[in-house]
């Protein structure tokens, strides 16, 4: 699956720097992701999605990138959507562009997951005052050059909420754009279970209290 995703990315975005962060996987993903022109990074132990994103962002900054697009490797995002996201950053109309599966056409979104994500967005709205329709989507375009303080410290899944916090704290201009999400059997099996969201909420609150 990762090879397919990378092939698509390379075909559609031949001039971009493609960074793959392997978060300590043991199933040979690291070897499979090794394709021409791909920058490959590996966490020697598993840290979590938030940590992997930040590693990728750090590396992109080191390579002198201005904009970073985060992209899930399970094939649920479309490489064709990237151009529109980057265009908004280039025109300086926003500092971060988030993808919403509810504005675009989402293929095969399970009903339960749909309402669940809507509730998550509502909670986020009440807690931060930032109004988004889809808070937990891995597809984002970020102007990292303008915001050196954009640092994700939540290693695991609560980084999505942390990003909303960062938007508020750093006063970033944000927009949401539709994007296509393909729910294949593969991406559904790899996605987090909804029960895990309870852990996320606890983690998030603890982080706020302890900091």
């Amino acid at each position, binding site marked *: 699956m990762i090879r397919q995703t990378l092939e698509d990315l390379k075909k559609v975005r031949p001039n971009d720097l493609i960074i793959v962060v392997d978060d300590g996987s043991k199933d040979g993903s690291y070897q499979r992701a090794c394709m*021409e022109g791909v920058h490959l*990074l590996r966490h020697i132990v598993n840290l979590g999605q938030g940590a992997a994103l930040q590693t990728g962002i750090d*590396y992109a900054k*080191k390579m002198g990138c201005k904009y970073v697009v985060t992209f899930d490797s399970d094939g649920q995002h479309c490489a064709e959507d990237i151009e529109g996201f980057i265009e908004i950053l280039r025109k300086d109309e926003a500092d971060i562009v988030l993808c919403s599966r509810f504005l675009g056409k989402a293929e095969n979104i399970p009903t339960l997951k749909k309402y669940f994500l809507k509730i998550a967005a509502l909670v986020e709205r009440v807690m931060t005052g930032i109004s988004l329709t889809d808070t937990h989507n891995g597809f984002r375009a970020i102007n990292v050059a303008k915001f050196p303080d954009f640092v994700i410290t939540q290693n695991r899944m609560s980084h999505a909420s942390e990003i909303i916090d960062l938007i508020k704290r750093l006063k970033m201009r944000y927009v949401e754009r539709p994007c296509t999400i393909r729910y294949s059997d593969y991406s559904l099996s790899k996605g987090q279970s909804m029960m895990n969201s309870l852990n996320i909420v606890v983690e998030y609150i603890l982080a706020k209290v*302890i900091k």
Partner: protein
Amino acid sequence: MIFIKIFLIVVLSIVFLLMAFSSRYRTYQRITVIFFYLFLAYLILFPDVADKVAGFFGIGRGVDLIIYLAIAILSLIVAVLYAKVKINERAITKIVRDIAIMKSRECK
């Protein structure tokens, strides 16, 4: 009664020895540990004292007072340990991230 006292004193002494002879304590911490040990040993040998102290605080039995104190102290220890785990986690993240960036490669 005497058996449980001996048992408690032995357990307490082992914990005390482990703590007193590990080198990661500062002097004032070690002195605190010693006084705490003496205090607990005293309570084990003369449980009636705990009852008096409990009565002073308006708590029925000395055992109750000790349970309340133990819960409070244990909660505090959990909080401190949690903070330490978080600090460790941050350090590990930094190490793993730096290694990942150092060993990054562009595939050919």
